[in-house]
């Protein structure tokens, strides 16, 4: 019962429902990569369980010629390969959409929706007849449905074959099995199904200067380029692949070709307390050191983060946020660590946070994080999340500025120390309220006692109120001074906008799409994506310029909004929250509806679509 639909090119979403641990991931990323190579804007979101084998897992692919690649929520096609979740998967397909299923077994009549088109392919039967080994039969079923999708969506087969060639160049048998399975699914579709579907792919050239990369890999690469030599960590989802990637890049780029020596040291610590301790020890000694972790790790690190803050020792922490509290949902995404990271540790503490929105910024911000950590002698957090960290994103090719020189901050060398009458650790300070430090092993005149106990500006132990306050007051000033150095917000202005929409991190694509959709519905809005904490002054200016702003973020307690209220002079009533915190990446729909229902009619205007006056601004002030 094919419904006749208008043909849509390069604008649809599909969802693949699988069982985890069955090898579906490679089939799904094969499709995603093929679409990428066809030059079409695409995104892939892996919605996976905290489990190794047997539980439901989904993969979503959104294709959009205009570049809107946030999560779609409206699925034109469901690839229902998991009988455990059939009912839910059938229910999620948009009206008039398609459902592809394994017809080896009959579909439960309860699962038939009158408005859907059912595509039946006997994947198991075909694979069981073609392949002998039990494991191979399971694995190849995935490649078989990929083959069917190649036919249904008009994926370029040559591109798919090329990808398989590259992947299995060293495994001839695997290459053959894959080819066979791909053809099984493809040929069956071509013979029995109407191909292609009304929504289909067509080559574009939108990806010539793009790459496909996940944020953990990009952050690790950024750390390599930044010159990090010591990395200490404790395995934790979803940050583990960051350190795995760092190790891989170090093996590739940091091995001395002559001696085979490693110009890096990666320490798998006993726990996150140990990991951050190692980072602090190495940074104290002058190395660029970092850890990668997630919320539960930050909880454990709180103690020593306070030490690094108070004793003024650099440290870089890559926080790939997941759903909390407690163990929470380790394989789901959230922006739930903002408050925890901003004020980590007991007593009065404030930290520097950077908020990349995609893998390209993870790479770009990593050297920045080290520069800021050393310039301000303090911990710096690179706040990514599971969506950015573990999903493949299409981003502009990474660029490295060959003239980059690491900012090692104020570190005195032997000659400078020897010429001083007396070295004092926390005095005198510069215009950014930072005092020069010395490294061990340089000169005995530069020796001092690093301590987390009360100290005066000379570094000496103190319990005297005024001496103690003098130091912590300077630390507050130092934190404020960092506002000028963190990446400025990205601001996109729209004519006649009277409301502002503020967001951070991986919400970016969904919120940008929402801003365009809102304009089309008569609510032009200015957009600001915050990229660092302490807040750059243009953040406050943006808010003051609008009657009110919506703050879109992925946590229950409106943590970004709280930070804005706490750290600017903006009053609470000017900021309204749009929250989404169930654990999946944000969709424009999550943003549009709540805003439409809250914007009073007097602030709405005539709908506009594409507007040539839209201006993107980085690092300027408001007027």
């Amino acid at each position: 019962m094919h419904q006749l639909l208008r043909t849509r090119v390069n604008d649809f979403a599909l969802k693949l429902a699988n069982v985890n641990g069955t090898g579906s991931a490679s089939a799904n990323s094969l499709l995603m990569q093929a679409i990428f190579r066809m030059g079409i804007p695409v995104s892939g979101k892996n919605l996976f369980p905290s489990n190794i084998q047997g539980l439901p897992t989904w993969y979503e692919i959104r294709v959009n010629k205009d570049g809107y690649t946030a999560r779609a929520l409206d699925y034109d096609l469901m690839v229902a390969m998991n009988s455990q979740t059939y009912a839910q998967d059938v229910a999620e397909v948009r009206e008039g959409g398609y459902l592809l299923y394994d017809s080896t077994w009959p579909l439960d009549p309860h699962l038939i929706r009158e408005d859907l088109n059912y595509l039946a392919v006997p994947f198991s039967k075909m694979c069981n007849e073609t392949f002998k080994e039990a494991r191979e039969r399971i694995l190849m079923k995935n490649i078989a449905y990929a083959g069917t999708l190649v036919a249904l969506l008009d994926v370029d087969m040559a591109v798919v074959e090329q990808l398989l060639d590259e992947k299995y160049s060293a495994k001839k048998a695997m290459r053959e099995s894959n080819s066979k399975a791909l053809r099984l699914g493809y040929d069956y579709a071509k013979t029995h199904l109407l191909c292609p579907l009304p929504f289909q792919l067509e080559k574009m050239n939108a990806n010539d200067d793009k790459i496909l990369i996940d944020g953990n890999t990009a952050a690790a690469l950024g750390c390599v380029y930044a010159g990090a030599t010591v990395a200490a960590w404790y395995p934790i989802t979803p940050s583990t692949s960051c350190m795995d990637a760092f190790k891989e890049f170090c093996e590739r780029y940091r091995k001395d070709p002559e001696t085979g020596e490693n110009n890096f040291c990666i320490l798998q610590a006993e726990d996150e307390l140990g990991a951050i301790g190692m980072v602090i020890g190495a940074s104290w000694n002058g190395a660029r050191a970092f850890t990668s972790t997630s919320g539960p790790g930050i909880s454990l690190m709180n103690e020593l983060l306070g030490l690094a803050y108070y004793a003024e020792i650099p440290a870089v922490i890559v926080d790939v946020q997941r759903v909390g509290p407690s163990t929470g949902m380790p394989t789901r995404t959230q922006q739930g660590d903002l408050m925890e990271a901003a004020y980590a540790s007991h007593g009065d503490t404030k930290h520097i946070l950077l908020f990349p929105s995609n893998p390209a910024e993870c790479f770009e911000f990593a050297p920045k994080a080290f520069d800021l950590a050393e310039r301000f002698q303090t911990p710096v957090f690179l706040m990514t999340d599971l969506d950015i960290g573990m999903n493949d994103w299409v981003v502009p090719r990474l660029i490295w500025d060959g003239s980059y020189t690491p900012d090692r901050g104020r570190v005195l060398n032997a000659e400078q120390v020897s010429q001083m009458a007396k070295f004092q650790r926390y005095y005198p300070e510069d215009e950014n309220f930072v005092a020069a430090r010395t490294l061990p092993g340089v000169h005995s005149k530069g020796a001092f006692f690093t301590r987390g106990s009360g100290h005066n500006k000379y570094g000496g132990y103190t319990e005297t109120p005024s001496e103690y306050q003098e130091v912590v007051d300077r630390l507050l000033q130092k934190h404020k001074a960092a506002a000028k150095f963190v990446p400025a917000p990205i601001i996109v202005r729209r004519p006649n906008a009277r409301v502002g929409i503020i967001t951070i991190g991986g919400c970016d694509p969904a919120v940008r799409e929402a801003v365009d959709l809102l304009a089309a519905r008569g609510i032009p809005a200015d957009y600001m994506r915050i990229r660092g904490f302490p807040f750059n002054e243009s953040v406050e200016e943006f808010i003051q310029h609008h009657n009110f702003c919506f703050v879109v973020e992925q946590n229950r307690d409106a943590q970004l909004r709280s930070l804005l209220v706490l750290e600017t002079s903006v009053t609470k009533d000017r900021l309204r929250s749009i929250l989404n915190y169930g654990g999946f990446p944000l969709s424009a729909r999550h943003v549009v509806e709540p805003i439409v229902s809250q914007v009073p009619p007097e602030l709405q205007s005539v709908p506009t679509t594409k507007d040539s006056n839209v201006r993107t601004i980085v690092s300027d002030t408001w007027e």
Partner: protein
Amino acid sequence: MPSIAKPVAVHPSLHRNAIGLNLRDYEGAMSTLCAGCGHDSITAAITRALWELSIEPHMIAKMSGIGCSSKTPTYFVSGAHGFNSAHGRMAAIATGANAANRELTYVGISGDGDSLSIGLGHLCHAIRRNVNMLYVIENNGVYGLTKGQFSASADVGSKSKRGEANRLAPIDPAMLALSIGATFVARSFSGDKEQLIPILKAAVAHRGFALVDVISPCVTFNDHNGSTKSYLYTRKHMHKTTESDFVPPASEILATIGQSGTTTVTMHDGSVVRFTAVPEHYDPTNRQQVLTYLQENRDAIATGLLYVDESVADMHERKRTPATPLSRLPQEKLCPGAAALQELQEDFR
């Protein structure tokens, strides 16, 4: 008291070490610990050992956690950087520091609370990694700064000042370390400088992690009748397993070899530790024998260089890091550059 500065005058007749420094150059600030504290004697022994080893003060890194013991790095080698970190975390911080700069001599000072309770995990893993450092546990069986609670090293039946007896089995750092592959384990008594100094010197020369457990009575909270960590009890119950002598690399050592009852172990830096086993047949190079000996002599306090193995690679050797400290590698060696990035990105297409 900290308000009393040490006089700076140096008597011309004071001996100088091989790099021309006298003992005063290895001293630190005045101790603020209680009069008679065992820790002060350990400080004196460390001062002496580092002076005798002729290590340049700025090439020493003094690491500690929190507690009475962890205050002591202030009291020796004021020309060395010190890091008084957080309770129990010193081993982890020292591991990272060592990873960044392998050229320094790391002197970690900890206590039984710091090492055997809150920091037990970090200690065990630093041992497993064989981080090249001296790790001293100033072991008094109590929490001093919080006024006398039992620590994890308190013996069963040992009484607190209030007369309460400890009922929990103690953690013996020496046995623990041996069981997880420690390569250097020694025990001594703060009141026995003769024994302690050569042990400390050998520990510094050791290739890897050197654990030195020093019984150090707490005169304020654990030096009474009924305590098994008092001066009196320790003096009565300690016995030596080995007598050791440390011979620096430059000294003539040939003459000492072959003496009856003496074993010599050549350390990684070429120095030599010469042992005389006090109980007959005690072999400080046989891990199983040492464990059995300690197990069988639990009622006594076995002291001396209990175990040593110079054949195991330390953390840096295992990690194959270069001789130049990682912290000093120039950016050109670390950054693959723009061209490499473009090439790499073909993998991301």
